[in-house]
């Protein structure tokens, strides 16, 4: 519904406009693309940062964000504004923050756990912070909630066929979190020890660091995680109970079969693997030499998978020993064929049948797994793939003679991994390129040699490689006593003996849907080398995982294809110049030197040493920023981290839009209403959208003035349109929680008798991880008056407040001491407050239905204890006990003053009729407040100082006021101010008559009153009440804007109702009018409250104890000395005027002045407790 006002932007100006609107009773929606308020790149944030004033606006931001009528939409990009005045719909895209604003308390445990450091600019300097961090560089922000910086998916991760979060595990390794790294790898895929050794590592091929120097050594790190994780592999940790009863048969225990079994087990199934060999692992066991992949590594993985409840039947050949039909009869409902490609292709030349001619699969199997297998002394391997190279290297280890590889193309076309080829050469294997065997020669039984011919490369063939062509007449003969044919393998699916199973006629591969891996027979799936032909391990694992998903869907009767795709995720684009790159060079894999490898089958690559591994991991550029290692999610006790957060589209209704975000350099354009008409065009002429442009020269004060004046204008127009003119909020409706919660004449508790309950806030474990809550509880329970101690996870949430309420009810508590992060129960918002603390108080006020400041005592054990004593837990625990004990002491003693509510009259008195005063009067009149203007005595000096423009502008305002029937009264002979804030009475005395004007607020145009030029020549007597109040304002005129007075009022909450506009002769008429409007905005917000109560820490002065020394009156201009009939004066203050600084209290010689919430006695007992005296006494008892 279109209600209220939408304020777009997060600048201090936007916040000021929103606060003014809300204080005048309008619903406000702040929409900002930034994650917190005060961060927009508009004028003020830069100037605020430059002047170090950002903390001045902090209370303003907090007041806005916590105002019940204000909703803040962060991370929200406005797309379109549709509709017209009175009925706008703002469509925005809410970008993910990945952290829930309602839950996050900013305890920063996530940031401590985050392994990724991302660069950012801090005051123009390059700095780094965790990928999960507070929105603003200086940690404070509104809202407090952290946010995560993500840019997408890192290229390494996008390239991984099994979807391993490569960046994630690398970042964890960089912080020495090896167990966590292995867990993260195993989130996506099993077999880390195997893949870490033999994967073709597309991750490394896609590494961005290549642009800097050389890629991160991801394969070595993958292995590093698998080999070094202290906890080892344990797939059971995250596996669910075996919940699914459907029987599944997997044929083949290679990487595809094992991966499928693993994934199915993780989904609750207990699959059975049938393996024809005695050894488990398929080609991984039989085809990969032990010096590349030791048996122990494979066996470890197999055992871990078995431990998941996977049954592996070895020595069973499906199709021969048992058929699929048999298995169906035994209740198997789904099948995964992963039989690999073990049948050798032959050369189809003569002599292949000779003794001494073997195929690569048999050779590797024999040398890998059989004892006593021997080789010849002149070995020739034919082929250029991995099995050729592996065969040659394996044979070389057993042979004292020569080992040669014949390959018909060049080194470039070899399909074997380049590193392995290099190692083979290092080990003494020679390679004859562009050489093709024509005939294998023999002596009738045994092989003796090979007749070969030389080749040259011709045209490209179908697979993109240049076709080798024989060079005529180049034939020659080489000797050989052992020939290994390694030109590729093909599956042998016929052995399966399955009717209707279709296979490719040429390649013999089983036909399966590329996405679902379902064969032509429903319920039978196939994957790995038997579908693709000989391929690498990682693709086989990927197929196994995909098959498992299909089988799960099949068994649950779900669509096999829905929501699945073979598309790889799109990797993020990175500008490497924006990244911090560690200066380390790529690590080298330590290896056994080639001359010590012969005759042995030990693993050559030794693995990275721990410190080298960590340093190598640090080389990662963290392409995607957040690595999604999920450490933050695991560490957050409050469940506030939400990695799955997505962009949402939201529609926000509003009657009027104020846009602080759009760039526009026209300084005065806030008067001009511009519209983005019906959606997108910024040039529309519809009314109702106010744009405040950017002006780098505008000061913070000017920005705030502009914003509040604009807000006032919006309110006036809205009310005019609706024809309603509320001058104060509807007090009876109870929309304001602060009033609703007033206690109903609660029985006064005499000091020292209160039943006190203590609440300990764990703050998502950020407090309780340092402070021993058990010990604190035991000790606090000993304190006098404490009847109950409760521990809660998060006091600032609504749930926390409700639990505290339940505790208070159950134990019939009079007072609660909350040990958390809040420091006081006052209304003020100081620079170190946070939105969670404000929220905490609001929730407590709501749930306890009592005034918090009086019934809840706060003790800060977070910033003042746990967070600064992490290195000393026992000291922190003792200190926490003392801090809480001081809170208990205060709670038992404090008897708050009965705070009275004063009504605020809906009228204003403007003293001084310069442009500022008249503008204020006009603006207030527009809002239907009754206004009286008293003009200062006309002085020639003042008149002479006015330029013609000023005079003309002023005349215009006078005319406007006259039209509204407001007359400007002349200055009386004497003007006295009586009454109290909210209901002042000005007594205007002239020779002939005395008139009294009642006013809720008083606005002073000092420029007119004191003259623009000589500030001394005032119309108000310095001795009068008004004169004394004005004195500091007049005195400090020259002192500049060290802290804007307006912002101070926001922090401590204005109660006096007196608004002073200072003179500045350099201001243009328009600037002066703006000042007037700003004062009117503040005054109307003050009037709109309807009632007023003094602030909690206001002083009271006992006239009985006062001996009239006047010390206090010299300190505070709000204190006045009054006469007594006895002739001895006494000091008096209106509590509503007191700012609560306490200076007068400290300097009262008789103790007549007290601050109930900050008396000497309370400070004394706080000291006593903090210095351990209370706990000491309790212990001694």
């Amino acid at each position, binding site marked *: 519904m279109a209600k209220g006002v939408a304020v777009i932007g997060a600048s201090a100006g936007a916040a000021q406009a929103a606060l003014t609107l809300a204080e005048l009773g309008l619903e406000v929606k702040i929409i900002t693309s930034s994650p917190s308020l005060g961060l927009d790149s508009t004028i003020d944030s830069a100037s605020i940062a430059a002047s*170090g004033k950002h*903390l001045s606006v902090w209370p303003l931001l907090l007041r806005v964000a916590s105002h019940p009528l204000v909703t803040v939409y962060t991370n929200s990009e406005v797309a379109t504004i549709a509709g017209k005045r009175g009925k706008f719909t703002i469509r925005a895209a809410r970008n993910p923050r990945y952290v829930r604003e309602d839950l996050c308390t900013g305890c*920063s445990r996530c940031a401590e756990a985050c392994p990724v450091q991302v660069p950012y600019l801090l005051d123009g300097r390059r700095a780094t912070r965790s990928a999960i961090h507070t929105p603003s560089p*200086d*940690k*404070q922000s509104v809202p407090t909630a952290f946010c995560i910086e993500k840019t997408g998916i890192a290229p390494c991760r996008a390239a991984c066929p099994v979807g391993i979060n490569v960046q994630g595990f690398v970042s964890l390794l960089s912080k020495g979190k090896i167990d966590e790294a292995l867990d993260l790898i195993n989130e996506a895929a099993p077999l880390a020890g195997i893949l870490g050794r033999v994967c073709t590592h597309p991750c490394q091929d896609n590494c961005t660091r290549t642009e800097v120097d050389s890629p991160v050594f991801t394969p070595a790190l993958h292995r590093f995680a698998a080999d070094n994780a202290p906890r080892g592999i344990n797939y059971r940790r995250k596996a669910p109970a075996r919940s699914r009863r459907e029987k599944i048969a997997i044929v083949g225990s290679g990487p595809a079969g094992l991966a499928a079994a693993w994934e199915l087990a993780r989904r609750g199934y207990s699959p059975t693997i049938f393996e024809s060999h005695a050894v488990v692992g398929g080609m991984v066991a039989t085809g990969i030499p032990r010096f590349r992949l030791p048996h122990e590594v494979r066996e470890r993985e197999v055992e871990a998978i078995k431990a998941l409840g996977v049954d592996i039947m070895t020595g069973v050949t499906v199709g021969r020993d048992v058929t699929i039909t048999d298995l169906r009869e035994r209740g198997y409902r789904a099948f995964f064929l992963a039989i690999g490609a073990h049948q050798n292709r032959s050369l189809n030349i003569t002599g292949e049948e000779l003794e001494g001619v073997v195929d690569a699969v048999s050779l590797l199997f024999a040398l890998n797994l059989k004892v006593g297998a021997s080789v010849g002394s002149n070995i020739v391997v034919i082929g250029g793939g991995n099995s050729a190279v592996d065969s040659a290297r394996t044979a070389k280890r057993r042979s004292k003679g020569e080992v040669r590889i014949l390959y018909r193309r060049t080194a470039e076309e070899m399909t074997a991994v380049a590193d392995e080829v290099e190692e083979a050469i290092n080990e003494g294997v020679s390679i004859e390129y562009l050489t093709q065997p024509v005939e294998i020669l023999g002596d009738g039984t045994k092989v003796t040699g090979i007749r070969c011919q030389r080749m040259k490369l011709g045209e490209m063939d179908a697979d993109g490689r240049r076709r080798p062509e024989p060079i005529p007449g180049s034939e020659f003969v080489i000797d050989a006593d052992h020939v290994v044919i390694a030109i590729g393998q093909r599956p042998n699916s016929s052995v399966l003996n399955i009717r209707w199973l279709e296979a490719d006629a040429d390649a013999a591969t089983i036909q399966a849907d590329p996405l679902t891996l379902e064969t032509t027979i429903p319920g039978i799936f196939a994957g790995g080398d038997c579908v693709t032909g000989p391929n690498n391990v990682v693709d086989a694992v990927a197929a196994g995982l995909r098959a498992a998903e299909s089988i799960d869907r099949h068994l649950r009767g779900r669509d096999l294809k829905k929501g699945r795709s073979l598309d790889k995720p799109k990797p993020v684009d990175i500008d490497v110049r924006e990244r911090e790159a560690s200066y380390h060079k790529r690590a080298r894999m330590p290896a056994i030197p080639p001359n010590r490898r012969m005759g042995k089958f030990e693993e050559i690559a030794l693995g990275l040493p721990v410190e080298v591994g960590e340093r190598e991991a640090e080389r990662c550029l963290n392409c995607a920023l957040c690595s999604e290692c999920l450490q933050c999610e695991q560490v957050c006790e409050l469940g506030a981290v939400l990695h799955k957060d997505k962009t949402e589209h939201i529609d926000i209704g509003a009657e009027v839009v104020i846009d602080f975000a759009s760039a526009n350099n026209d300084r005065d354009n806030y008067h001009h209403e511009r519209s983005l008409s019906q959606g997108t065009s910024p040039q529309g002429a519809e009314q109702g959208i106010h744009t405040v442009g950017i002006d780098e020269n505008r000061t913070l004060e000017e920005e705030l003035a502009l914003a509040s004046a604009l807000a006032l204008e919006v309110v006036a127009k809205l009310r005019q349109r609706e024809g309603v003119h509320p001058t104060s909020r509807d007090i009876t409706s109870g929309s304001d929680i602060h009033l609703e919660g007033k206690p109903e004449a609660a029985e006064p508790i005499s000091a020292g008798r209160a039943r006190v309950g203590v609440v300990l806030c764990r703050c998502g474990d950020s407090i309780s991880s340092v402070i021993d809550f058990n010990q604190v509880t035991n000790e606090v329970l000993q304190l006098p008056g404490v009847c109950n101690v409760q521990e809660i996870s998060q006091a600032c949430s609504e749930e926390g407040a409700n639990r505290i309420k339940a505790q208070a009810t159950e134990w019939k508590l009079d007072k609660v001491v909350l040990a958390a992060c809040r*420091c*006081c129960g006052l209304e*003020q918002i*100081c*620079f*170190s407050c946070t939105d969670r603390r404000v929220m905490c108080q609001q929730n407590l006020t709501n749930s306890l239905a009592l005034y918090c400041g009086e019934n809840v005592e706060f003790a800060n054990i*977070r*910033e*003042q*204890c746990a*967070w*600064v*004593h*992490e*290195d*000393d837990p026992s*000291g*922190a625990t*003792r*200190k926490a006990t*003392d*801090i809480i004990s001081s809170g208990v002491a205060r709670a038992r003693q404090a008897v708050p003053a009965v705070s009275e509510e004063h009504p605020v009259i809906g009228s204003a008195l403007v003293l001084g009729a310069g442009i500022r005063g008249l503008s204020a009067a006009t603006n207030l009149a527009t809002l239907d407040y009754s206004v009286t203007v008293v003009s200062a005595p006309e002085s020639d000096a003042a008149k002479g100082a006015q330029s013609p423009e000023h005079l003309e502008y002023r005349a215009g305002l006078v005319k406007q006021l006259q039209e509204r029937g407001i007359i400007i009264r002349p200055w009386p002979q004497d003007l006295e101010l009586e009454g109290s804030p909210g209901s002042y009475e000005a007594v205007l005395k002239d020779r002939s008559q005395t008139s009294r004007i009642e006013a809720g607020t008083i606005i002073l145009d000092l420029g007119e009153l004191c003259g623009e030029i000589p500030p001394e020549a005032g119309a108000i007597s310095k001795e009068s009440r008004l004169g004394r109040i004005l004195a*500091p304002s007049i005195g*400090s005129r020259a002192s500049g804007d*060290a*802290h804007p007075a307006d912002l*101070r009022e926001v*922090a*401590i909450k204005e109660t006096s109702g007196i608004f002073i506009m200072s003179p500045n002769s350099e201001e243009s008429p328009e600037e002066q009018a703006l000042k007037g409007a700003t004062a009117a905005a503040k005054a109307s917000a003050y009037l709109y409250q309807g009632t007023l109560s003094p602030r909690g*820490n206001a002083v009271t002065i006992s006239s009985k104890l006062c001996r009239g020394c006047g010390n206090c009156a010299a*300190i505070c201009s709000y204190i006045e000395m009054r006469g007594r009939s006895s002739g001895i004066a006494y000091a008096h203050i209106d509590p509503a005027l007191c*700012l*609560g*600084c*306490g*200076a007068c*209290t*400290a*300097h009262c010689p008789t103790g007549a002045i007290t*601050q109930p919430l*900050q008396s*000497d006695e309370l*400070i*004394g007992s*706080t*000291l*006593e407790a*903090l*210095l*351990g*005296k209370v*706990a*000491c006494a309790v*212990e001694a008892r």
Partner: protein
Amino acid sequence: MSRSAAHLVVFACNWDGLTCIEAAAQAGLSYPASVRVVRVSCLSRVHQGLILKAFELGAAGVMLLGCKPGNCQFDVDARYIAGEYEKARMLLRLLGLGEERLVLCHMARSDGSGFVKQVATFAQEIEQMQPAVPARA
């Protein structure tokens, strides 16, 4: 349990003084747990009596932590605390406790590291002095 740690009392002004203590925590800094913070509305609320009270209760040192000139929320600055500080120093001298057990710090807003540095140095200096109060039965 022993409570022998030489406690330091920091009277911190609720405004800029407290921002330093907050900033120290936000920045993850640390200082001795013997430092105990008493929040007051403004340093001008503190008088010599309260300072002496802290010593009477066994504090080994007292730090008055307030804002830089011109930053006072109440435009009071050090107008009143400076005098109280001088008077209390005189009394500490008279009582034989040593005037160096009391320090007055005016710190910039949110100067967490500055605060930690000051308070840690102060704690160290105090530790090197003789016990503040001779052990009384």
